């Protein structure tokens, strides 16, 4: 592992940094944890040189704005240390963590605890997201000013929707004072009912209770109307339904401050997967559920036409024991941090849906801008948070090899093209991928 003071130059690699208007071969000099120069043929001045292998791509550090780190309270699923290491291995230099821990992140003391643990771990940067309401119970608004001061970058009652239209209205108004978005888990509770899978022919024939796509879009429509009323910023989390995408497009066309994110499983899988093998694989159970093919295709189209702002993983670790239950009883959610980059490169970039530049927008620039956090672009004088991609490297996903404490991934055995080669946080090369040839060049000199 390289040290902070170690000066090095990433030489001759393709740099893709849309916010800086860069897509070409540049040298990047890093010292004291920061980017100290970007340019062609930079003088080396005795710095260690990393010749970037042909085909590798240097991007601003990737940021996952929707992660469940589970600590405090559910450390058997994940801890801040294991989750942020999983992020680094997945190519993320920063994550925003959801407040549905035990206790809920609804007070500055919980936020401070998370920040402290993240700092001790020293892996990916952590940006806590605070609860909208105390205990996320939907009654009383949290002290957003206090939470913001402690480090929260957004507010949400994720895991469930903000309970009432009135509370959402007040939250949008109040949070506007701090220029932070409200992130919404869109779901009408009455339409969701006891549903465990997308309401469609597949769930119907498998005898699983359905959750219709409109359970999501109805709540999104409510929130977009309230953002329009209040001038607040609403961000639609883990969008899955085509009706929701339509609502977001309508809102954007009216000038409402609405943004949205989509998780990789919602553009790579559909509900047909529930029939695979013996069927009822609980690693295919997440909320929102895998939708039908028309929804998946709508998400792909949303990437193509630019309607989707962010890719986030909704990384939701669960212990194997919790998933080894009847489908109805197993918890919702899958891990996503370590499978995101290969899925996005293979299914979006190589598939011709988006460019690499757009990939960087969706996974770095856009979440940084939305949360008003550093990064998203490489700037001289700013921390050197950098992701190195090997877009052509073959990857076979092995659930058992994930470094996350939980292995609940539906992508076990998938063969994809595109890997993270190295992850650099604050100038320290925290990870080089042993499966990618040439990635070891990024590792620092062997320590004695």
């Amino acid at each position: 592992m390289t040290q902070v003071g170690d000066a090095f130059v990433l030489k001759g690699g393709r740099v893709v940094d849309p916010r800086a208007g860069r897509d070409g071969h540049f040298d990047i000099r890093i010292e004291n944890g920061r980017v100290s120069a970007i340019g062609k043929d930079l003088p080396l001045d005795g710095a260690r040189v990393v010749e970037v292998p042909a085909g590798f791509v240097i991007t601003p550090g990737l940021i996952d704005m929707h992660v469940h780190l589970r600590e405090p309270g559910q450390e058997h699923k994940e801890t801040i240390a294991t989750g942020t290491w999983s992020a680094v291995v997945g190519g993320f230099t920063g994550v925003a963590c959801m407040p549905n821990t035990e206790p809920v992140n609804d007070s500055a003391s919980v936020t401070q605890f998370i920040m402290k643990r993240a700092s001790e771990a020293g892996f990916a940067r952590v940006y806590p997201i605070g609860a909208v309401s105390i205990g996320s119970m939907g009654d009383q608004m949290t002290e957003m000013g206090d939470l913001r001061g402690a480090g929260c970058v957004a507010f949400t009652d994720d895991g469930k929707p903000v309970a009432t239209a009135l509370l959402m209205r007040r939250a949008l108004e109040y949070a506007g004072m701090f220029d932070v978005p409200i992130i919404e888990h869109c779901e009408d509770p009455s339409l969701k009912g006891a549903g465990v899978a997308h309401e469609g022919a597949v769930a119907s024939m498998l005898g699983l209770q359905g959750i219709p796509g409109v359970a999501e879009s109805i709540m999104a429509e409510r929130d977009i109307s309230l953002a329009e009323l209040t001038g607040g910023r609403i961000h639609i989390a883990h969008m899955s339904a085509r009706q929701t995408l339509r609502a977001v497009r309508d809102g954007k066309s009216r000038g409402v401050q609405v943004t949205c994110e989509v998780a990789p499983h919602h553009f790579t899988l559909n509900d047909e997967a529930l029939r695979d093998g013996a069927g009822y694989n609980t690693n295919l159970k997440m909320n929102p559920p895998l939708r039908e093919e028309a929804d998946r295709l709508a998400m792909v189209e949303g990437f193509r036409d630019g309607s989707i702002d962010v890719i986030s993983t909704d990384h939701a670790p669960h212990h194997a024991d919790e998933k080894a239950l009847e489908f109805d009883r197993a918890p919702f959610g899958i891990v996503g941090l370590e499978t995101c980059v290969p899925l996005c490169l293979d299914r979006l970039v190589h598939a011709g849906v988006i460019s690499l530049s757009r990939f960087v927008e969706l996974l770095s620039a856009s979440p940084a801008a939305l949360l008003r956090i550093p990064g998203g672009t490489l700037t001289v004088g700013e921390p050197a948070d950098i992701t190195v991609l090997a877009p052509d490297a073959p990857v076979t996903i092995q659930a058992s090899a994930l470094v996350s404490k939980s292995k609940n991934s539906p992508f076990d055995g998938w063969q994809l093209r595109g890997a993270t080669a190295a992850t650099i946080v604050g100038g320290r090369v925290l990870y080089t991928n042993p499966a990618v040839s040439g990635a070891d060049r990024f590792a620092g000199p062997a320590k004695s």
Partner: protein
Amino acid sequence: MTAATRLQSRHLLSIADLEPAEIDLILDTAVAMKEIGTRTIKKVPALRGRTVVNLFFEASTRTRLSFELAEKRLSADTMGITAAGSSVTKGETLADTARTLEAMSPDIIVIRHAASGAPHLLSTICRAGIVNAGDGMHEHPTQALLDALTMRERKGRLAGLKVAIVGDLLHSRVLRSNALLLTKMGAEVRACGPPTLIPLGLTALGVHVTTSLDEAVKDVDVVMMLRVQRERMHGMFLPSVREYFTLFGLTPARLERAASDVIVMHPGPMNRGVEIDSAVADGPWSVILDQVANGVAVRMAVLYLLAGEELS
């Protein structure tokens, strides 16, 4: 289509997994098994030395007794577990219960469970053959097989039969298994119920879906009534028993539109006066008790085909 001589899978999880030839094989085997029930000594040694576990996590009378009787007639050693008297009440997971049973080397586990897919979970853990005795809203394969046997006995065939299935379609595993089986075997299936209780995906199977009982029963050879649970009357599915019976209850007058030799079936337990008039349930059209008798034969056939000695 060549005749099957054995089942491809060592489990019976769903009708969806069966080929038409396998369905024929089970039904033909059931005919032979039925004869055993007419003997003075109603027992054959086909499953002698085999162990069958009946794992009933959900209330059941006829299915449980029917399986037990089938097992006994085949000379299997049987054990029964119900949720109420088991370690399930102590918080044991289904997977752990399965592993515990597995350690006792059963040959067959028969499972009834409120969660759809519970038998599938068992099949990924156990070496034993798994027989689905009803899982949630998913399937009840032996019910559809015994219904098919009853129809074949009464009508001589399945292909071309017109069958109306009426009631709470949404929550019914009997509907799903029957719709799959009957469409596979070439019958014409009509499903009828209130719009709040119609599941998605039936049309894709080739089932004609209607909310009109008169349309559903017109000229049909078979009317199969499904139970409507009382609790559905208090949710937002249905306004009242009274209105349900008016619109969907099977009465002698309604039956006049069906074929003159129509038979009426019900998987039980019946709600008299809710989905079916007693005059129909006890009338000349009713084959409801035949279904019960055929249930034993069909379960004997399934157990024999999954665990019995090879015919030499």
